[in-house]
């Protein structure tokens, strides 16, 4: 085993996912301390160009038609082969719909230890410690990473996307794909999310609503505030699941990640699935009656007033301020 940090590049429909850059940033940190190299594994078909801004020492590019779109079985075989060949110190994957589909399988097949929900990895020389966050953000677990190839699935929040981007394209090495016949998973088609109204990912000001909104018609209050501010309404999973807002407004792990200038979180507890999707915001302001809600750990400003009281008052004051 050497000190190489292997990072799986996650890409979907021609775009590299933000989590990849975060993984690269983490990998760089560890590599610097342990003297290893950061190696990004990019699998695809005619996708070499995606490697251009990866902050890696080396990019391993595997081209095969079966790898054109993400396929859990194909990726598992590929990574297993790469691990067998290169014996990296760590294998970093995103704790996402891509990474989580393969990490545990690899752990079972290759009998390698696995750490999930990891926020940060600290490196002191070759001594590595992990810090994971579990139980809805209410519990931290830390410990040493064993001295063997270890798989880690990571959550965003420890690094900014820019830290994993590079101005200079890294060196790309092509690698032969392992046998990819007889795959038992096949992609039939993608289904686009319905009726794109607003792209919340491009909005500079977002008003997010969570469980604390309680009833569908309290949304009016939030919408009014959003209108007064000139922003857009978005929501966490419980709200979207009830069909109070369309899925295009979902901010979270299975929804969109957003980076507005201001994110006003109303009645949102701040559980990791949502929190990780808003950490890119410049400023988060949280309104929640529960002072122990984890949202206050990511927000810059907070208040425990009831959103049903505060939102109308704030909307009024904003209108006054704008109207003169």
């Amino acid at each position: 085993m050497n000190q190489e940090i292997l990072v799986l590049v996650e890409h979907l429909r021609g775009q590299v996912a933000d989590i990849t850059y975060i993984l690269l940033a983490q990998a760089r940190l560890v590599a610097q301390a342990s003297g290893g190299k950061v190696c990004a594994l990019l699998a695809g078909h005619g996708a070499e160009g995606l490697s251009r801004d990866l902050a890696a020492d080396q990019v391993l590019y595997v081209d095969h038609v079966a790898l054109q779109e993400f396929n859990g079985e194909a990726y598992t075989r590929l990574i297993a082969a790469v691990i067998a060949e290169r014996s990296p110190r760590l294998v970093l994957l995103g704790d996402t719909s891509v990474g989580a589909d393969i990490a545990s399988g690899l752990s079972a097949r290759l009998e390698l230890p696995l750490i999930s929900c990891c926020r940060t990895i600290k490196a002191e020389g070759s001594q590595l410690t992990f810090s994971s966050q579990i139980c809805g953000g209410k519990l931290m677990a830390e410990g040493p990473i064993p001295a063997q190839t270890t798989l880690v699935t990571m959550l965003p929040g420890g690094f900014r996307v820019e830290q994993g981007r590079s101005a200079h394209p890294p060196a790309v090495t092509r690698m032969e794909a392992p046998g990819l016949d007889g795959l038992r998973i096949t992609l039939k088609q993608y289904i686009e999310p319905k009726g794109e109204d607003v792209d919340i990912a491009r909005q500079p000001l977002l008003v997010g609503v969570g469980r604390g909104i309680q009833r569908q018609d309290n949304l009016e209050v939030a919408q009014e505030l959003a209108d007064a501010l000139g922003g857009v309404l978005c929501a966490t999973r419980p709200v979207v699941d009830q069909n109070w807002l369309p899925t295009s407004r979902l901010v979270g792990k299975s929804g969109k990640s957003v980076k507005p200038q201001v994110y006003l979180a109303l009645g949102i507890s701040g559980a990791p699935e949502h929190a990780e999707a808003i950490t890119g915001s410049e400023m988060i302001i949280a309104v929640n009656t529960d002072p122990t809600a984890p949202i206050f750990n990511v927000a810059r400003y907070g208040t425990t007033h009831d959103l049903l009281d505060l939102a109308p008052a704030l909307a009024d004051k904003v209108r006054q301020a704008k109207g003169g």
Partner: protein
Amino acid sequence: MPERIDFWGIPQPWGPILVYSIVSLAAIVFLVRFYRQASLWWKVGRPERRWNHPLLRLWNLVKVSIAQLRILRQRYPGIMHLTLAWAYFVFFLGTALATINGHFFKFLEGSPYLIYKFVLDIFTIVFMVGAVMAAFRRFVKKPDRLTLSPRYTWSLIFIIAIVINGLLVESFRLAIQKPDWALWSPAGWALAQLWIVTGIPQVVLQGLHVAFYTIHFLSVSALFVILPASSLVHIVTGPLNAFFAELDRPTGRLAALPLNKQSEPIYASTLRGLTWKQLLDADTCTECGRCQDVCPSYNAGGEISPKLLVVKVRDALRRDGRAIAAGGPSPLLVGDGISEAMVWSCTTCGACDQECPVLIDHTGLAVDFRRYLVSEGKVETRLSETLANLSRYGNSFGQSERARPRWAQSLPVKVRDARKEAVEYLWFVGDYASYNPQVTDVTRQTAEIFQKAGLDFGILYEGERNSGNDVRRVGEEGLFEFLVEKNTAALGKCTFQKMITCDPHTYNTLRNEYPAEVMGGRPVQHSSELLQELAASGKIQLTKKLGYRVTYHDPCYLGRYNQVYAAPRELIEATGCTLVEMPRHGAQALCCNAGGGRIWMDEGSLRERSERPSESRVREAAALPGVEMLVVACPKDLVMFRDAVKTTGLEGKLVVKELAELVGESMA
């Protein structure tokens, strides 16, 4: 000498023979047809015992169906209906007396006869007034709650026609007879002038008399024949329904879940799951719509109404009853005509049951349908989650049981633990008063008032569970029983003499539904009753006279269900406030729409021009001249109305306060 001559002017002997035979035949047809319809009630429906206390039942019948006290609650329709109904009572009585007079005992002669004629004629005039009122109402005013279908139009036309016809017959006779006592039949004599003045020959008049007499007895016979199928059948079913009304159970206690011979529950999935009385209810409905007018859900939503619920059952009975009685299949009721939304929209406020002139139990029907839906798991997500929370954590908020007594932690004097020491008053606090941050301040204030009064009280701390009132009304009997078990176990370990609660829902179920062995005859009081007692006996001193102009909202489960109207009002007066009543007060109070589990359900979309009941209520309060405060006696009302004040923009104009807050302020 004035006397009634039987069959005057009618050719003998065929006349009477024809009249008696045809009318009797019509009566028999009526009885047969009515029996065929009525027998469906017990052939299709489940058995139920309703024969006890016959004299009390008869008295109810007199109050509800003869004196028609409920109908009189609304002036115009009340007068209108009483004139029409009483006129017919009198006419029917008149005919009966005439028959007795003709065949058994002659008494309609001299003064008795004159009075008899006078009364009949006066009631003809009275009827005409009612007829004009009815026609104006049905064809010109057209209030929303009426069903304006041809069926009802024809009924009205028919009964008016019969009376006009009768008057005509009398007028022709009087025009011929020209008796000295003609003025004792003022209406008939007035009409008779028309024939006299126009100089119609005797012979023609005689012919007209016989003709219209014939039409008269034929149309009355026709009335008998069509009665079972017409809307006028309520003449029979109304009194029957009043007679068989529920006497044993207080309104605050729901009927037990019925079990079949294998001890399995019977659900109201089809008509067979309803009792014969419920089917009679359905057949009795006259579609008057008074229930709909007072229903908070209808006035906020639209197609969902108690009237519609009952009418749909009636339609199902008419359509499938015969086939089911013959052993055919029973189609499902909910899902066919009765939507699930309709069933869930009921707040169980009881306003409909209270208004109904024929004593239909709409609420019981809705709860029975809910029991069925719950048994099938057809429960919407939000309610399903709340029920799961109630089952797992014993409260509807999904918070730990350990958090229940947290409201009391900040009190300077610790509230006693009734599980550990004997107390005189056991205070069953309730979910909303314990967990909802909008209410806990008031709960603390209440505790401090009790402490200042030197009351010997304690609470169950973590041992308390939701009392189950609304769980039962949502139709989850199993969960209700489970909660009762848990609370019973906790109560069983305590020593106390009386129970108090500030939550009317809790009050209702503890008082009316918890097993007698558990309550042990110990009284349950609402905090308003207790506070009023304490103020009256001087244990708390309401020294500061507040001088606010306030109005008071009667909670459904305190007022309408348990008749506690006076104590809160006396308490308000005792604090030195002036009480101004809202138009809909007391038993007519408008439900805030939180009950029956509605506060646990998705509100659904509102019709554009309609408003929430809670908003309508705060507007009603704010409209009272000089009134600045709405006083409530229920934690859910507090939450609902404070929210409504915000959403209607009445902040600054109307303040919502709980009784305890008022008392606390007055004690300062």
